[in-house]
């Protein structure tokens, strides 16, 4: 489109505004949980070149947010906490964040930021000069009007966490500014229960409902979701970039359009640079009909193709699990077999611009033998299966096993505090693998 076209569009837009008198229409982007500077978690066997690309992913997602703001000519950007990953925030992250918002400010797009449990005000803020047009809320509730040509478009009320551990219901302190054309509340908070996140600044839908705001711009929960569409709209945009295997799928921000004081459109736009794919458990790949290694390679490769399409031109990190009574079971049980398989498949995908990183291939296959026969025969295998069943069903027995056999590692000073000891359910999960290992060792075929 050439300049004339833009001009005509602009004039038409202006005309429309004048004719309908809708000078108060505006757009904004709602984002949260940028976790700038956060490394990807729980990744195995990453080559440093791939690792370096992942280091940038969070920042690139942030750049994507900025681009969306500019492309959609929004009036302002909301960031609902956890801009940074750690209390000490990280210098590079702070500088890049400042630079990004400065870029927006130059284009006349304002930014409103609150801090959350990951980056509370008690953390380190480097000596940086912030551009005008960036509003960082303090530890008291503040209200900032957004104006266009002297006319107030909306009010944004927000508060940052003074420290990480905020357990009080901050939402109750929010009061809708009187005579506001559109009121937005900006807060990092855990809404309801069962979000799977720590209950910081806990609140309920009723609390938010009672406040009289038009839009609750929340942060904290990493999965995007519109909790309520209107009166008030309650929105979690989630983090713009998934950070570990449990944050698989699309990640992005919400683009909101307000017309005549009403939220008329709310669209989710993806910003993730690397997408996670978790094909374990129920999504694991059934290979019970696979007889040869070649078929197996073909199957996994086809799966990678599929993921590559689903990733929509992004890079992908894939955790894969194989399941089923597999003729190849004994092969898979060999020490380095899966590692070799992974490297063989990896070659094809890892060097692309939008790479596909096959992070792990788990083996949850069984010997293609009828364990029931062993159970019935009451032989030694039956004894083992019985004991494993007992561990599955009796928490006491499992606990006793854990205490006796696992405590030397998990209760020692050595075990990194960042890693929690295995939970009961995790232990139950690995019983499958214990079963596979033992059956394979005791009656598995000798590898040819």
């Amino acid at each position: 489109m050439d300049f004339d076209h833009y001009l005509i569009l602009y004039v038409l837009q202006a005309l429309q505004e004048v004719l309908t008198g809708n000078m108060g229409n505006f757009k904004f982007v709602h984002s949260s949980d940028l976790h700038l500077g956060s490394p990807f978690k729980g990744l195995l066997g990453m080559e440093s070149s791939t690792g370096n690309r992942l280091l940038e992913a969070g920042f690139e997602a942030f750049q994507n947010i900025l681009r969306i703001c500019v492309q959609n000519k929004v009036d302002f950007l909301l960031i609902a906490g956890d801009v940074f990953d750690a209390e000490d925030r990280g210098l590079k992250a702070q500088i890049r964040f400042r630079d990004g918002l400065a870029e927006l400010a130059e284009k006349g797009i304002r930014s409103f930021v609150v801090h959350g449990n990951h980056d509370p005000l008690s953390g380190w803020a480097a000596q940086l000069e912030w551009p005008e047009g960036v509003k960082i809320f303090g530890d008291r509730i503040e209200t900032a009007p957004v104006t266009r040509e002297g006319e107030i478009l909306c009010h944004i009320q927000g508060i940052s966490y003074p420290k990480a551990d905020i357990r009080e219901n901050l939402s109750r302190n929010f009061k809708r500014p009187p005579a506001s054309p559109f009121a937005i509340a900006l807060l990092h908070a855990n809404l309801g229960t069962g979000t799977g996140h720590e209950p910081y600044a806990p609140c309920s839908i009723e609390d938010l409902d009672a406040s009289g705001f038009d839009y609750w711009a929340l942060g904290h929960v990493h999965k995007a979701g519109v909790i309520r569409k209107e009166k008030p709209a309650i929105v979690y945009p989630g983090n713009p970039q998934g950070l570990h295997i449990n944050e698989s799928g699309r990640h992005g921000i919400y683009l909101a359009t307000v017309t005549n004081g009403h939220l008329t459109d709310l669209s989710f736009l993806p910003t993730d640079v690397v997408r996670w794919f978790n094909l374990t458990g129920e999504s694991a790949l059934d290979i019970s009909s696979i007889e040869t290694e070649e078929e197996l390679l073909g199957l996994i490769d086809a799966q990678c193709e599929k993921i590559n399409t689903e990733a929509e031109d992004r890079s992908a990190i894939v955790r894969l699990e194989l399941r089923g009574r597999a003729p190849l079971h004994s092969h898979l049980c060999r020490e380095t077999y899966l590692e070799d398989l992974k490297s063989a498949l990896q070659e094809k995908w890892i060097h692309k611009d939008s790479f596909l990183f096959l992070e792990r291939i788990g083996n949850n296959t069984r010997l293609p033998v009828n364990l029931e026969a062993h159970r019935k025969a009451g032989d030694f295998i039956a004894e083992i299966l019985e004991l494993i069943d007992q561990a599955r069903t009796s928490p006491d027995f499992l606990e006793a096993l854990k205490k006796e056999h696992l405590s030397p590692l998990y209760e020692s000073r050595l075990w990194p505090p960042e890693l929690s000891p295995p939970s009961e359910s995790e232990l139950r999960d690995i019983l499958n693998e214990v079963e596979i290992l033992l059956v394979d060792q005791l009656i598995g075929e000798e590898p040819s």
Partner: protein
Amino acid sequence: MRIRKIHIEGFGVLHDVSLELSPGMNIMFGSNESGKTTLFEFIHRILYGFPRGRKKKDYNPYASIHKTKTGGRLLLEDEKAGLFSVERYEGENSGDSIVTRADGGKGLEEDLVSILSPITQDMYRDVFAFGVDELRDLQEESLKRFYSAGLGLKNVFVSDVLRLLETRSQEIFKTTRGETSIRKNITKINAIQKEIHGLSLQKDQYDAISLELKKTDEELISIKESHDRSRKQFDHDNLLKKALPLWVELSQSQNELSAIPVLLAFPQQALVRLEKILDRISELENLAKTTAENLSRAKSRFREIHGKLSELSPDIRESPEESLPGLLDADQKDLSMAFVFLSSLNQKKDKMETLEEKKRSLQSQLTMAQMNSAVPLQTAYIPGLIAPLALAITGIAFMSQGLDMLWSFIIVGIAIILSLVHILSTYGKLNDFRKGEDHFAPMRKEIDTYVLAMKTLADEIEQDKSEIATRVKKIGISALPTIEEIENKRIALNRLGSELRDCKKDWENSESSLSNINGNADAARKELAQLLEASQAPDIETFRRLAAQMEKRTRLEETIKSTRKNLMILGFREISPLKDELEKTSLLEIEKRIQDSQVLLESLVKAMNELRQKKGELLEKRRMMELDRIPELRAQKEQALAETEFLGKKWRIYRLAAAILQKAREKYEREKQPRVLQEAGLFFKKMTAGKYHRIGFSPEEKTFLVFDYRDNVKNPILLSRGAREQMYFAIRFGLIRSFESNGIVLPLMTDDILVNFDPERSRGAAQAFMELSQTHQTLFFTCHPETANIFKEFFSDIMIHQL
């Protein structure tokens, strides 16, 4: 399975031997070398095949010595497969079995294999077919088989699996010190954490650097300001220093100028002009002098030439100088005329001679012609008349002779024609002769004209001679000169004449240029007088003094102008402030100020450079910090954590697997394995008559244990040889019972196993055999009659095969 019949085609010492066996106990009795062991080995090989591969090449002690095929057949009976025979021969195929069913149908190798399959050849040898040597111990391999056979697993020791799991888990982590992958990872994590901690301490430093940078910037600005001020003063002083000599020159010039009186009018470039005029005058005077000398030289030369001419011509000697040219011209003319007459005279003389010659030739011609004209008349007619006459006679002759009339006429005709022609030509010549007589008259007339012309010429020659004489008389040449004489005289006259004329021309030229030069000199003198008058100088001396004054004035004025211009260039447009400033100071003072400023400026520049460098360093330091390795380190840490977590999970699996396996084994040993050992214990108890009542097994040490009636445990190594053999015998019995419970029943063969048993225990053993033979066909090989008798004690219906 039972063996019904044995047929040996040939095997070692045995050949063509057939035996029918009892389904229960069979005592195979024979003395030494009767072929007991050979038979034992035969059955074994027919069931499991001949040794193959490398073993085959070894010496075969059982090759038939009777030149028959090595091998034979067994008739077998199985509960499931029924009756069938197995036949094998050593040979190309190393004794592939020929299985034939009872109904005559071809059986399959697989049938046999499936019956024997749970029990491998080695295991069969170990448990079902053993001699006294095997009884002494069980090899580790056998032990493993023994044990796993009991557990119903593949050939593995649970303890081996346990150890493997333990090793794997310990590779990952163990409580005791030592390199494990988890410890390695944790060390890495701690190192990364330490580095992160170190780097995060830098955040205060970062802020400090930012503040210091700000301070440095302010300092830099203030120093820059004072530097600029000093620089300005320094530049100004430098200008003053340059202006000072100019100023001094200006002042002096102005003073000098005011001392010189003002001259109102003085011609432009007066002095140059004066010198020019004076030069011209002296030059002209010199020229006049040279010209006058030339004039007098020309005059004396003229006289010299005149003298020479006078010698040539007497005329000239007596004539005045003025008429000389005219005289010369007249002499020249006379000489030319004399020359002309002389030439004409010579021509006439030549003409006279020519005429004389012609007259003489004509006279001789005339004489010749008169003689010639009288001769031809007599001689001309004779030949002309003879020829026709002859012809006419010939013709007539012909006619008279009567010849052809025609030919005669032709000849006569020709004769007539020839006569006519002759007559005509003779008439012509007569005419010519008459005409010659007329020709002699003009010739005589011509001779007369020549004589007349010669007379006239002689008169003219005389006249010319007198003309010449008058012409040359006054020039001093003989009256009748030669051409050379006239020519020589004429050339000499001509040369001197032209010299004289040139000389006269020089004379006249010199006279005229002299008068010109004098005129010019007068004009120059007049110009000089005018110049002096114009500059109001009475004389050249005064003129010169005035001109010098004027020149100095002009120079001073120019100096003033140029110094002002230079000062302006230096930036001093107005003189008075400069004057004020310079009057207050001195060069020394200015130079000192410049020096001071220079020192100050240098120190300021140095300070600025230092600050700039410091700023650069701070910026670099800050930039380095902004590179911020922490995210990278955190990513590394995350990966190490993930690695640790993953290893932890593997470790958990190994540990739990080991725990479960251990528990299962304990339980199995407690609940199931004892059944095998119980059976064995019972046999052992029977054989030892209650001395030992139980057998146990230590999987860790892979050793059996025996318990006496007081339940004291004893290692079998400590047992007597007989007791130990009895224990292993009992263990085999226990295993055979456990296989039986799994549906595996194979014939049992023993080779003199009771040799080390005392009679009491032998009886116990025999009893055990008898019990077992109820279910398992037994072939008991022995060479001791008493052993056979022991069995007879218990059972009367046993079959004893005498070999």
